[in-house]
């Protein structure tokens, strides 16, 4: 039981505004992934070979590079949002939960940038 006023107990618990943005971003990325994920599975299915050279030329085609970039970034975003909710729900204790949330963000930003670097390198033909 706290002696703080109701308002005093609220600060630091997150705001409804940020929560709405999180919720909405999760839905927007979900709808985007329906299209991008569907494209990826279809496009992979059309490949005649999974040899390195075949994938290099597939990923290097401009349309595929752009779509792979969109897919990777949207996946990382959606995954970061979803994992955040899971951590918030199951990881308790303020320090461990803050550390988990930070690591979740760092890991997803790392994955997103690694994917971008890989796709751009393939697109520009340097290796």
């Amino acid at each position, binding site marked *: 039981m706290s002696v703080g006023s109701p308002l005093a107990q609220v600060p630091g618990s997150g705001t409804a505004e940020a929560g709405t943005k999180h919720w909405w971003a999760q*839905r927007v990325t*979900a*709808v985007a992934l*329906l299209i991008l*994920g569907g494209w990826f*599975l279809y496009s*992979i*299915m*059309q490949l005649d070979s*999974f040899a*390195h*050279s075949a*994938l*290099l030329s597939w*990923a290097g085609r401009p349309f595929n590079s752009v779509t*792979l970039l969109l897919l*990777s970034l949207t*996946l*990382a975003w959606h*995954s970061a949002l*979803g*994992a955040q909710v*899971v951590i918030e729900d199951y990881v308790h204790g303020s320090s461990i939960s803050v550390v988990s949330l930070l690591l979740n963000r760092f890991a997803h930003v790392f*994955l997103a940038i*690694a*994917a971008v*670097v*890989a*796709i751009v*390198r*393939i697109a520009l033909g340097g*290796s």
Partner: protein
Amino acid sequence: MTISILHRMTGVALSVGLIAFVLWLASIAIGAGAYEAVAGFMGTIIGRLLLLGWSFAFFFHLANGIRHLFWDVGIGFEMRQANASAWFVVVATVLMTAGYWFLLYDPRSLI
């Protein structure tokens, strides 16, 4: 209930799958040697089981995600509808997973 926790579990599995996806992309960029190491592992029994699991998780999360989007706009909240859509998700997941691997291995078999 079961379907709801499966949505989270498949989501977490797919987050782990994202690491594999980025590794795969990076290996293509790094070169043939790196790519063959990744592709070689994915060709083992463990690798194939992982790919099967991730594809199942993907299709489940996709089908149940669509169910959630319908709920978000207020459709399908009746108990009868929710039960029916849960079964639809299960059947759609199995069909999509099986169908995808079937097509991947032999895309011309249906034409």
